[in-house]
């Protein structure tokens, strides 16, 4: 069931007694794209602060209470669009994470303290340094998102987090951590009326602060022609990434592109890894549909085999894309790709946390819940002709970004050197 409390909190309760556990998720519209200009990393740091204690669960007590309840997993995750907090507990202790999350939502801000802030800021800084990924990816993200885009990464994330203060995190928390900007999802083995009553008891009295919250907007990035990004650095692995603009999640074409990605990732006739690894061009390939609230890209990544030419890889990928535009080629590969997606859909359904996250996503994207039956029906309805047409519409050679990473031992800086060109 999906309903809203009077304070605006979205509530999704899905009862499934197959497993003796309950996954509880609270998702806030409080991801990094909600940060004001010049306050990068504020969403992530605020997520850390949200674990430091609340009026009734002071000083990291949340870990102790969840452990007492036998939580199998719990964490907080900040993405570009959301900040999410989850716990998986034995079914009989489902009230514990509800109690904790309501305290986090209502009674945390007053407990924000500077010593905890300084400690968490240092931890976030270390997380950034440990997980910052490759300079190739950072250059690519900068090429994708212009200076004022909410998804553009900061030039120096560690420096950005150092510039933040406690008052900034407090402001971000007050603005975004509120019932009318959140979705609470429970999936698992519970008694529905009792769960509903517990949710009402803990979350019903939580009041919104003054003001309103709105999601930042930005136009989908388009490619004006053939864009090329060349990154040269001391990193040895040669890489190629090719990106095309894809439709948003709610579009009818989105599923066609998801099936294309499945075909390229699979083992069939249109398998990209078979084509490239078999010809000694690559060590690994992956294809993904990277869709978020403000952008959607169809992306192919290739790790270059030592000695292979990036030009040859690009031509081989291009040839495979052309095959995706032909109905007869797609017809032969579609049954396997579709079966793989159906199978994944069924297996993912065993994961209650995954289901909870997807319910929250469905509400964000579609404004309603999508049943598994509807999801499977939509998947089965996609035809080879639709896929080929979508490939012709979106995967065009004239409008794409091709990013190459080339090893250059002379480049000594950590970030390497990048040049971005547009050929219209």
């Amino acid at each position, binding site marked *: 069931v999906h309903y809203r409390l009077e304070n605006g909190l979205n509530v999704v309760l899905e009862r499934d007694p197959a497993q003796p556990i309950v996954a509880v998720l609270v998702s806030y519209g409080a991801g990094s794209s909600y940060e004001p200009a010049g306050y990068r990393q504020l969403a992530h740091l605020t997520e850390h602060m949200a674990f430091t204690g609340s009026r009734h669960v002071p000083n990291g007590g949340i870990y102790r209470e969840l452990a007492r309840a*036998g939580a*199998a*997993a719990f964490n907080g995750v900040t993405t570009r669009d959301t900040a999410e907090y989850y716990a998986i507990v034995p079914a009989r202790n489902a009230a514990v994470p509800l109690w904790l999350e309501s305290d986090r939502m*209502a009674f945390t801000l007053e407990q924000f303290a500077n010593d905890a802030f300084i400690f968490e800021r240092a931890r976030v800084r270390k997380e950034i340094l440990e997980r910052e990924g490759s300079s190739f990816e950072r250059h690519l993200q900068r090429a994708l998102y212009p200076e004022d885009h909410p998804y553009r990464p900061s030039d120096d994330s560690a420096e950005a987090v150092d510039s933040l203060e406690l008052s900034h995190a407090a402001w971000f928390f007050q603005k975004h951590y509120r019932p009318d900007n959140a979705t609470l999802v429970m999936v698992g083995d519970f008694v529905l009326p009792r769960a509903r009553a517990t949710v009402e008891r803990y979350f019903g009295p939580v009041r919104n602060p003054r003001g309103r919250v709105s999601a930042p907007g930005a136009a989908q990035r388009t490619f004006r022609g053939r864009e090329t990004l060349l990154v040269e650095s001391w990193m040895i692995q040669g890489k190629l990434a090719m990106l095309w603009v894809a439709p948003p999640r709610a579009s009818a074409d989105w599923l066609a592109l998801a099936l294309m990605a499945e075909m390229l990732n699979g083992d069939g006739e249109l398998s990209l890894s078979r084509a490239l690894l078999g010809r000694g061009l690559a060590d690994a390939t992956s294809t993904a549909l990277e869709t978020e609230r403000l952008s959607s890209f169809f992306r192919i990544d290739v790790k270059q085999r030592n000695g292979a030419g990036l030009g040859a890889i690009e031509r081989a990928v291009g040839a495979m894309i052309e095959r995706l535009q032909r109905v007869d080629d797609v017809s032969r590969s579609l049954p396997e790709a579709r079966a793989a997606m159906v199978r994944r859909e069924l297996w993912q359904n065993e994961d209650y946390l995954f289901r909870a996250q997807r319910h929250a996503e469905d509400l964000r994207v579609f404004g309603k819940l999508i049943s598994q039956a509807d999801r499977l029906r939509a998947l089965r309805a996609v035809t080879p002709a639709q896929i080929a047409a979508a490939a012709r519409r979106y995967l065009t050679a004239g409008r794409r970004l091709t990013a190459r990473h080339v090893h250059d031992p002379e480049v000594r800086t950590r970030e390497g050197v990048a040049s971005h060109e547009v050929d219209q």
Partner: protein
Amino acid sequence: MKSGARWLSWLVALWTAIACAPRREPLPPLTEPLTPTQDAPFRSRAPEPEPLPDRVLPEMRVDVLPNGATIAVVERPGSGLVALSLVIRGAGREPAGDPAGLAALTAELASKRARIGDGRLLDDVRIDGRRVMNEVEDDGTTFHLAVRRSALTEAVPLLVQTTTDIGFERRAFASDLVEHLDRVAIASHSVDAQLHQTALEGLYGVDHRLSRFVIGSVKTVRAISFAQAKAFRDRYYRASETVLIAAGDATLAEVRKLAEPILGSMPDAGGPPRIEASPRILPSEALRPIRAISNASAMANLMLAIPGPGMADGVEFWAFRVLVAMLAEQPRTRANAAVNHEHVRTYGIGGAVQGRYESSEAILGFSVEPEDVGSTLEAVLAELDAMQRLSHDELDLVRSRFLTGLAASSARNEALANLLAVWFAHRLPPTSAMALSETLAGLNPDILMRVARKWLRRDRLQIAAIGPPRETHAELDELAPVEWFRFEFQ
């Protein structure tokens, strides 16, 4: 530098600093009240958690075929899904006399080159878009396939086909070998893999079977012949060492009916079951020399390998397992608390236990800024010493979390099939899996402290590091002598 040029460079630096400074508007002040929600008595205490159920693993039905092959099924009608695992005990990591990677390559060949009834190779067959996958651990090899119930009739014969000798082909061997070599080359570049191998070499000796990558090195795999792979398979792929596991929407009767035509004809030649002796830990009077790999990275990575009891040791193994969870497997562990709160040196410590029938190791890993490597390591070692002082509360927290994790994963068919596969691979009786919750319930602080005194000792562990020597050597050297070397990709 001439003074004019110096001024110019300062001006450029100043301009860059100004241009790159975060451009931002001040944020508005907070609105009052900070907490608009009214407090209430029910908020003052968490709902009292209820005790965990006594039994967390579901019932399993087991049947043994006349040739000794076992079929174990957890029947869960109605889920529409079935996870299958085929375990070959004893076909795990090869003995020291065989080339490293032999077991892994043999498993790869079996899951690709076995030929099914209609003449196709396993490698060319997909069910629901998936093919048979394999996993080689210390005690056994496992083949996995998870399918919808509607595909069960096809999936069971396909999976057990990996045990047959048909189509184990010499002519495809060369290309399979090259493909495996590629995987080995890519995997051996991982920092964690290098650290792991380096630590275990210090613990067990360079040539010990446990010190080598399970998938082998480029040098050892390149030298494997088709005859060696076939001999390994003939020696270890035996009926009495084989267990077919199904978890999900299938009954024991139907799984047996589908598997028996192939599994029932599997030979059971060879000698007694292969069980390795417990590894001998090289003697040490204090902290043994730190093995360090020279690397120009900005961070230092450290790994501690701590030898532990085997899974056959029952209570002692599970006590060790719980101790390591307390130390480094949870978000708020002792080691994390010690390191982060006093020094703020590392983001966190990860820990895991690699269990085998006859022995185990705890592996603790973390990354740290090079100048803090010594103080952080000392904090972790001090916490290791402090594991000899434990409270009931602490044990209860970890135990309940452990049992819930077990309940959560065993409720999922694929995770349950994997769990049971591990259990069978380690030759542990199925009844002990069912009794795991009782075993954990029987642990108390006295048992844990006794096990901590026996196993969590500085003179038994091995430290490995990767980092820049100039920044880290002095820090490490204060704790123990450091042996620096370059990692050789062989």
